[in-house]
């Protein structure tokens, strides 16, 4: 599989995403934000970091990069797009995912491991996650509190679009397990077509036991499996 990892000015988890994909046996390359085309791509990763310094609002400026036009088209054609952390913020700003990510409720940046419950395995991003497995994955963000208005939230639930939620060690969705105040402990969602997803935690930082956890690999393995089963859209 070919992964395209976007590179905005001050993306800083771009190399990490490339590293994780390669480590898991697939190919990945960086695509510059000024490029209007994604080239030959099976899946797009919008990586973490501080695109444009996160000035104004996280992800707000990156959304206007030429490459985002290509991503939009790729997604419209059914291509798989995963936004991680800042990438999630970019995708919500771009309207590819509903809702918004606002300042953590305690106003502090949080870098720590959290536990993640997979709310549904019915998505290209979760299909390989073992049933009942609680993932231990790092977060690192200051603005990861997921917000959506009530109507949007109801729709997310009705369509089974919530993919991951913060939980405790035993899988309970408690308030103290929620690092940022996200509504319903939401850590990641997908669009209603189920081909675009975003999450605040960093699965690419959890693909090697040397780094403390390899639980993140299940998310990538899910994508690989989905791509294998249904070859999708052409890149724009």
């Amino acid at each position: 599989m070919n992964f395209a990892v976007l590179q905005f000015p001050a993306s800083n988890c771009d190399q990490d995403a490339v590293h994780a994909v390669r480590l898991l046996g697939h190919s990945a390359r960086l695509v510059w934000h000024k490029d209007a085309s994604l080239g030959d791509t099976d899946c797009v990763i919008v990586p973490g970091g501080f695109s444009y310094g996160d000035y104004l609002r996280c992800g707000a400026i990156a959304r206007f990069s030429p490459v985002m036009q290509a991503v939009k088209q790729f997604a419209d054609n059914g291509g798989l797009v995963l936004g991680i952390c800042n990438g999630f913020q970019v995708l919500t700003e771009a309207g590819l995912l509903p809702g918004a990510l606002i300042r953590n409720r305690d106003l502090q940046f949080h870098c720590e491991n959290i536990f993640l419950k997979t709310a549904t395995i019915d998505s290209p991003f979760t299909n390989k996650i073992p049933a009942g497995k609680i993932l231990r994955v790092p977060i690192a963000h200051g603005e990861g509190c997921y917000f959506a208005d009530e109507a949007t939230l109801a729709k997310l639930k009705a369509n089974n679009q919530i993919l991951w939620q913060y939980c405790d060690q035993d899988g309970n969705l408690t308030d103290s397990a929620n690092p940022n105040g996200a509504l319903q402990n939401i850590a990641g969602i997908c669009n209603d077509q189920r081909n675009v997803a975003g999450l605040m935690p960093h699965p690419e930082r959890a693909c090697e036991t040397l780094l403390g956890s390899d639980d993140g690999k299940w998310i990538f393995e899910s994508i690989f499996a989905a791509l294998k089963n249904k070859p999708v859209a052409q890149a724009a």
Partner: protein
Amino acid sequence: MTEPAITPELVAKHNLTPEEYAHAVAILGRTPSYTELGIFSVMWSEHCSYKNTKPLLKTFPTKSPKILVGAGEENAGIIDIGDGIAIAFKIESHNHPSAVEPFQGATTGVGGIVRDIFTMGARPVCAVNSLRFGELSDPTVRRLFSGVVSGIAHYGNCFGIPTVAGEVYFDKTYQGNPLVNAFCLGVLRHEQITRGAAKGVGNPVFYVGPATGRDGLAGAAFASQDLTEESAEQQRGAVQVGDPFMEKLVCEACLELLATGAVAGMQDMGAAGLTCSTCEMAARASTGIEIELDKVPQRAPNMSSYEIMLSESQERMLIVVHKGREEEVKRIFDKWDLPWSEIGIITDTGHMKVRHGGKLVVDIPAKKIADESPVYQREAVEPAYLKAVRAFRLDGIADTTSPADNLKKLLAWPSIASKNWVYRQYDHQVRDGSVVLPGSDAAVIRIKADSLPVMTAELAAQVAGKPVPDKLIAMTVDCNGGYVYLDPYEGAKSAVAEACRNLACSGALPLGATDNLNMPSPLKPELFWQIKESVRGLAEGCKAFNAPVTGGNCSLYNQSPAGPIDPTPTISVVGLIDKPEHVTTQWFKDAGDAIILLGDAVDTTDPILGLGGSAYLQVIHGQKNGSPPRCDLEVAKTLHTTLIGLIHSGLVKSAHDCSEGGLAVALAESCISQLIARDTPRLIGATIDLSALKDVRLDALLFGETQSRIVISCKAVEAVKVVERAKLMGVPAVQIGKVGGDTLTVKTASGEFSAPLTELHDAWWNSIARAMA
């Protein structure tokens, strides 16, 4: 614009003595222009010239076959770590700016040190910080503390560098004068080392990065003065704002440019901005440099040549490019949407010439101003307070009767308590290389192929087919300023020993060190004595552990109206771990494991049994007094190599050294410091029996800070072997207990105490967060 006339008052305002001024006139052969006066002032400030410390710095061990770039040569030292790979690292202070504006002071501190690293051609891969504040009960201290921490977080997180280690102490000596030291480490191939030399007559000089404003005018001079009430006010106009986004782009663009091979020399504009970078680059290459200020991008209207030359606007670089390769600079900096401007040329005159508005405003022999800076041998006199310190005895202090309670108080003491409130705000995992996160004795990072800067085509061809083996680097920064105050020489030695002990606990042997001398004024003989003795201790320590000093920083005049700070020579030691399986962490692993103490439980030759300067005396008895525990460097070295040997044999499951709070705190931390995830520690208890140690005060046994002690754990069946092997190496070793349960239970000759781990953990883990709530 008319420039002010040069008067003795103006000279004095520029912090130049009449003798220094006379020397400047002699170098020029005439009266300096106003801009030239400014240049002499910053170049000869303590910050840039080390005029009061140079003779001392010469005593550091700086040689080793592994050193590729040594101390003082360049912006940072570089050490070979094998397979053609090298690391560049350095520590730098930003104390005074942080006192005035904690957030921006800290951001620009991090920005400056990161620039020092990529200036060498290295890719910055991790950061470390060392902080000192007054007591947390004071609201001003809390404001400074939270401002500094969020400044470091803001800059490092946005730039995308993991902050993997650090230390924080709270003591009223730092009340008006916090310390903010920032360290950065980068990775590169030997061939990629870039010099800050203005080489190649006729080569063009480029300015890249954001426009110059009136930021931090004469910041270097500011850093070289006492911090007074007014200085905060006066310096307000001088506050520099860090822009990590810009720095990330500048860094990526510079590394990309270096990979073209078009660069002849590169230097960041740090302290004293354009002045220092042009002067130093020309001096290093023995060339001249000519620049035109009208071509310098400017943010503010009508800036004078004085202001442009002395501005400390951040994130700017000066690059000398091989003639004919200018297009590559333009192409790459345009790609990154960064401002650039060709501002000058390298000459063979040996002079630094600056033109502005068609006029020659500066004409100084570069090598002379850089190399002929004044040097002072200051007078050193042992301070009187040390007599009382040395005479301090424990007679008036009753032995403890409530050890469990003492332990909880110590664990909750902010200088000992967990610093998770701090490091949780730092991204410590970006770049996918953090193997041991903050919270164990030393941080460990993994260096992999993508940690390296992009290569030139030539180099890429040369190393093709030779994959980079992963490497493991450990690092720590340490210094107990209280010890140093009570005995500068012993205290400084102990700082190095502790750093190396922390490395040993993580499985690493030292490669090299970088130090930051945070000191009061060198002009008072008693204070200069502290500086001198500290340097002697550091030098001996670094020599003993084969940790040559590759560079560092001096920050003098750290004193507020309340008085001087405790001398605080922070030292960061970097080490190498040869295999992933040798990476060791400080927490106990499995119930049933044996707990062994390496080293003498108490130094009985010390009349105050390791309690001098201890956290225990400070917290429980309100006294910062007594000679600190002595550090025998040979004993320490044997201990470290023995532990490394045991680790290499696969015998050690955890290792944690005894530092502040002594054995009891080290044991408690081994039980409670493993973190699974947010709010989810892994607590694992221990049962300890110290009853064999009969004739020693209980407080000294539990909380004394005798040096060179490490608590390790191993499989029960291997305990005897471990003890035997340690003894064979000449290291005292004894099994003191075993892992398991949900309490820390300690039996001593005078009874037993037991504390539930949940209570110990709460005291230790949440204490700082509570103070900050």
